[in-house]
């Protein structure tokens, strides 16, 4: 079969266009919206903690509570509708992911009760890195490399904040960097990923 250079070029452009549209479909799945939501929650919660320290538990419990409810409802709805891209055995994976996160939170509180951290920054850094551990693990499971690298990046950001940033400014550091990284990843995969 012989074709001209122009026809070959046109074919390659069609290939690129179809591949881009497919990746955009993946990117615009619900994951990006949840990342945007959690990024905003981190930013608001950390800033709220910095400026209204006396309300720290109310801020985190209420915002994270809302976040968890929305995450569960969105995930449940998507599970029922089925995502456009199916990973083998994903129907069974949905419940396993839910159990994994539930167990992780349960173990988090068990570990905290055993380790008895000395101050709030320790508790916060512990919880942030544990959640990022879950991002890294799920990123590896599903080959969601943006989740994998996001988990690693925010872990590093948290460690920098814990070890290098003065305690009084930890929350001011975490809001734009940690929260911003999560928010930025969600925005990028939703609107700009091709």
């Amino acid at each position, binding site marked *: 079969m012989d074709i*001209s*250079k122009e026809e070959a070029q046109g074919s390659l452009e069609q*290939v690129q266009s179809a*591949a881009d549209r497919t990746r955009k479909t993946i990117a615009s799945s619900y994951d990006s919206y949840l990342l945007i939501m959690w990024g905003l929650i981190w930013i608001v919660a950390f800033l709220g903690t910095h400026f209204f320290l006396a309300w720290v538990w109310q801020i985190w419990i209420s915002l994270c509570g809302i976040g968890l409810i929305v995450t569960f409802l969105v995930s449940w709805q998507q599970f029922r509708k089925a995502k456009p891209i199916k*990973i083998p055995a994903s129907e069974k994976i949905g419940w396993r992911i839910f159990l994994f996160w539930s167990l992780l939170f349960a173990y988090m509180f068990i570990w905290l009760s055993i380790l008895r951290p000395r101050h709030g920054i320790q508790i916060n850094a512990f919880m942030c890195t544990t959640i990022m551990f879950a991002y890294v693990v799920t990123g590896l499971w599903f*080959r969601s490399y943006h989740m994998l690298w996001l988990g690693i990046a925010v872990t590093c950001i948290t460690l920098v904040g814990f070890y290098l940033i003065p305690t009084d400014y930890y929350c001011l550091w975490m809001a734009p960097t940690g929260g911003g990284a999560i928010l930025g990843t969600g925005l990028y995969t939703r609107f700009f990923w091709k």
Partner: protein
Amino acid sequence: MAQLDNIIHQTVRLQIMSALVALDPGEQVDFVYMRKILNLTDGNLGAHLTKLENAGYVKIEKTFIARKPRTFVNATGKGRDAFDEHIAALKKIIEGSKK
């Protein structure tokens, strides 16, 4: 030497394979979403998928999710190899004409 593939080269089938190869191996795309991505009718997409399936380039799986029938498609290893060779052949044609 890389050769053009007559089955893949057809415009719609080329786009289908491009979309499928953009996914990770083992990932499947829903038939309805593929139709939307490529802006095709059910019949058109179905006919081309059948041709690709007969060549062993794609695998079509019909299943039920939440009691609704769903059809998922993925590229086989043979299909990915054939697609890669086709792309290499296209690039060779373009490079050859530049000399």
